[in-house]
């Protein structure tokens, strides 16, 4: 914990947070046990009693965080926070230092990434401080089309912004260790040239003024190792993405504020939209190898939490700047893409179990790790709790029937049970109400008072419907991770393309079946007691429809026209977000990489960039490469596997040789597709979008 924070403040906050969460949990458990008074205890009840504290503590922790956040908002913010210290009074006088803005990409939509960099560049230009910042587009793309398009987009950016020597491009030959490996590669090569790096995601956008402010904050507070901003989800068009945006904008801040108040200088790092002090990051934050067998994957998948813990362990502070604005990201466009992302995050968060007990990790970081772990582990626990609760209700009912006992024994004691149920609802929904209340003064920026309320009501209804769906999938993901199935770093889909109904039936249909069977069985065995399970079964039964409807862009845009689920960035679009929505993007179409072999310009860009790192040896190509060249000519570009395409592109002499041969050989000696690529070469989308204009 930071020496700049008074011990008493730390002690009071931790006592209140841990004590409050514990008291609420204990209170809930006592009420549950009192509900069992004078009742027959069945085997399933032991499971209910054992699982209940785990689930209830999660609700209690969430409630306490929201309460902390709301309180902090009421009093005008944490005076001990790094962004509220005296340096802010003269912040313009704080000097800046060399800062790299690192944008790791992996088969992302190139035009969107390039437009984002351009917007940030222009925003930084307006601050008059751009000389302190360099951009690094660090590519791990495994797709040949993306690679070639990235190179052209980079050249286009440098030309357009006159930014040669300020915007750099790096393509790794071997994408070892995913995004963290990509960032570490930057640190190893160029880290010493800079004091700070601002790490972004491919979809991240930050304003120039925010980046300047972050750099000044780091300069003014040398004990800070990582300063994380609160990225707000924006640019959504699909209903699902707009729903996530709305949730984040309305409720996100009080939770972040609460976390910051409780964790203080041992805050979270989310892997992007954050500034990092490079020297200690290089020295202390390379990820350790996990103590598991090679087959289970020893690389840390979710690197950010571990890096924050290692930074803290090295004696540096990690803060969340939750209130500075000017930091955005994009969310998944539909439920399926969110689940794809959750599958990866789940595997990563479960790996963090090892760090929960590692020596030297701070208490705040352990709390962060615990919350992350339980975000996914609570799903199988909740499922087991529901099953155990249902079995217990059935056993109780059967016992009463056979023993002909009084009817009031077929359920737990009503006073305690209803009280517990009421408290649970309060703990679940009060944070939402607090979040909503904190946004009411700015209701106009959310479409107006009534639209904000109605949107919040609809959002709550949809969350109730989607929660059981997520529970089942998260349970599967936990099982997958525990069984050791490999999870890879995959590209996040950021386009609002919608989902076909057949896809939704195929992916979620089993939940509908499960819901129908479950509802029938529950009705048969539990009679009216099965009503309690109705929200769960309804979520499962409607899962395909929910996924399909929420993925719709038309619905999302329609609701936007009505002012529902509006967020401030939609009501008044900041200049940094202009030109970034799906409608504005002119994505390059078709197969692009053959143009690296045909187009003189694209080939020149590619060979110049590859040659800088791998000067041609002048040796003869290997027989396998010779065979690959001939196969490419005879069978066309579509015949090559992704790795074979990359192999061709990595060899400068092969690219040059193919350029010559593909233009010189008679059509009869070329695969028929090459004629098409030759005639398309002058009007290739790479040329139109990036190199010579439309």
């Amino acid at each position: 914990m930071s020496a700049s924070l008074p011990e008493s403040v730390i002690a009071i906050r931790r006592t209140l947070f841990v004590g409050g969460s514990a008291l609420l949990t204990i209170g809930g458990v006592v009420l549950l046990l009192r509900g069992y008074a004078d009742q027959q205890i069945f085997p399933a009840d032991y499971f209910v009693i054992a699982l209940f504290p785990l689930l209830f503590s999660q609700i209690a922790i969430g409630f306490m965080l929201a309460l902390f956040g709301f309180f902090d908002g009421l009093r005008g913010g944490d005076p001990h926070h790094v962004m509220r210290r005296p340096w802010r009074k003269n912040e313009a006088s704080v000097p800046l230092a060399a800062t790299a803005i690192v944008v790791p990409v992996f088969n992302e939509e190139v035009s969107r990434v390039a437009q984002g960099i351009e917007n940030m560049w222009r925003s930084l230009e307006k601050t008059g401080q751009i000389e302190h910042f360099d951009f690094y587009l660090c590519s791990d793309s495994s797709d040949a089309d993306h690679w070639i398009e990235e190179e052209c987009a980079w050249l286009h950016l440098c030309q357009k912004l006159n930014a040669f020597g300020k915007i750099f491009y790096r393509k790794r030959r071997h994408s070892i260790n995913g995004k963290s490996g990509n960032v570490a590669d930057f640190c190893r090569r160029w880290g010493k040239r800079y004091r700070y790096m601002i790490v972004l995601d491919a979809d991240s956008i930050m304003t120039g003024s925010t980046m300047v402010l972050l750099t000044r904050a780091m300069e003014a507070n040398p004990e800070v190792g990582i300063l994380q901003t609160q990225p707000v989800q924006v640019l959504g068009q699909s209903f699902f993405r707009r729903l996530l945006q709305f949730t984040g904008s309305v409720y996100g801040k009080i939770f972040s504020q609460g976390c910051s108040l409780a964790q203080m200088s041992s805050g979270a790092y989310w892997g992007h939209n954050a500034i990092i002090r490079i020297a200690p990051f290089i020295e202390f934050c390379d990820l350790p190898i996990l103590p598991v067998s090679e087959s289970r994957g020893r690389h840390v998948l979710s690197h950010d939490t571990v890096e924050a813990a290692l930074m803290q362990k090295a004696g540096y502070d990690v803060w969340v700047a939750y209130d500075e604005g000017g930091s955005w990201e994009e969310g998944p466009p539909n439920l399926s893409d969110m689940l794809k992302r959750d599958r990866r995050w789940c595997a990563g968060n479960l790996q963090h179990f090892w760090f929960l007990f590692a020596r030297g990790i701070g208490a705040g970081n352990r709390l962060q790790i615990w919350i992350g772990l339980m975000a996914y582990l609570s799903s199988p626990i909740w499922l087991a709790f529901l099953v155990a609760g249902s079995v217990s209700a059935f056993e109780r009912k059967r016992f009463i029937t056979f023993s002909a006992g009084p009817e009031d024994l077929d359920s737990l004691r009503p006073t305690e049970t209803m009280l517990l149920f009421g408290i649970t609802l309060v703990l679940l929904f009060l944070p939402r109400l607090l979040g909503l209340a904190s946004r009411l003064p700015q209701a106009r920026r959310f479409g107006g008072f009534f639209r904000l309320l109605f949107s919040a009501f609809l959002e709550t209804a949809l969350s109730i419907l989607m929660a059981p769906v997520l529970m089942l999938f998260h349970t599967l993901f936990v099982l997958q991770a525990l069984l050791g199935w490999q999870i890879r770093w995959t590209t996040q889909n950021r386009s609002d393309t919608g989902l076909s109904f057949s896809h939704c039936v195929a992916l979620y249909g089993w939940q509908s079946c499960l819901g129908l069977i479950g509802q029938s069985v529950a009705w048969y065995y539990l009679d009216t007691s099965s009503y309690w399970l109705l929200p769960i079964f309804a979520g499962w039964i409607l899962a395909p429809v929910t996924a399909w409807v929420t993925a719709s862009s038309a619905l999302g845009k329609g609701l936007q026209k009505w002012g529902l689920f509006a967020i401030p960035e939609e009501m008044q679009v900041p200049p940094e977000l202009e030109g970034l929505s799906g409608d504005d993007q002119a994505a390059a179409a078709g197969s692009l990489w053959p143009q690296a072999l045909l187009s003189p310009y694209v080939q020149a860009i590619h060979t110049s960039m590859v040659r800088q790192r791998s000067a041609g040896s002048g040796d003869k190509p290997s027989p396998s490469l010779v065979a690959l060249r001939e196969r490419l000519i005879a069978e066309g570009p579509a015949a090559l596997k992704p790795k074979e395409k990359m192999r061709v592109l990595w060899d400068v002499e092969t690219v040059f040789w193919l350029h010559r041969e593909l233009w010189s050989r008679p059509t009869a000696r070329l695969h028929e597709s090459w004629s098409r690529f030759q005639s398309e070469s002058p009007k290739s989308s790479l040329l139109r979008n990036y190199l010579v204009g439309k």
Partner: protein
Amino acid sequence: MASIDSSSIPQSDDQAAWNEAYDRLRHFLESFALGDHTQVPRLALHLLEEARALHRQEPARDPVTVTMENAQKRLAEWLGGNLEVDGKNPSQVFSSGYLAFLLSKHLRATPDVLLASPLLAELRAEMRGTLLVTGPDLNISSMTPRHLDYGPMLGLARNTWHRWNVREILVAVLFWTGVYFVFYWWLSELL
């Protein structure tokens, strides 16, 4: 109107091949995206005439191959003559030259300079000045993971999952049985 030399007109057998050669050459030249579209057929016809002359010396070769090899040879000579490329191999000459052509504003504005000789000194200097920097000079740092003590869980997990020991299993069973009975007793008393 000037008459056309009939000796340069190809025989009908070759017609298709020369048409193909012309089309190929036109596509190739169009891919330079010259500002003046009429420059492409002018250049193409000029290079095609040269190729026909060459083809008469080697009639066995395919017209497409002869035409395109000649065009690329002419480009290499032109680029090599205008860039300081001593010691560079042909692929470097082409990539440097094409990039210079792409990045030069003057060259793009005056497309008739492609393959024109001699180039204006100003344009030549601009082409020679083109340098593509994809990243600054390396400044290598060592970034290696430090040892992390994973604490008691590591030993527990390894001993439990990697090695079966009867005594440890018995202790575990006894421990959890004890926990169960304590829990059971506590619940019975409470309720």
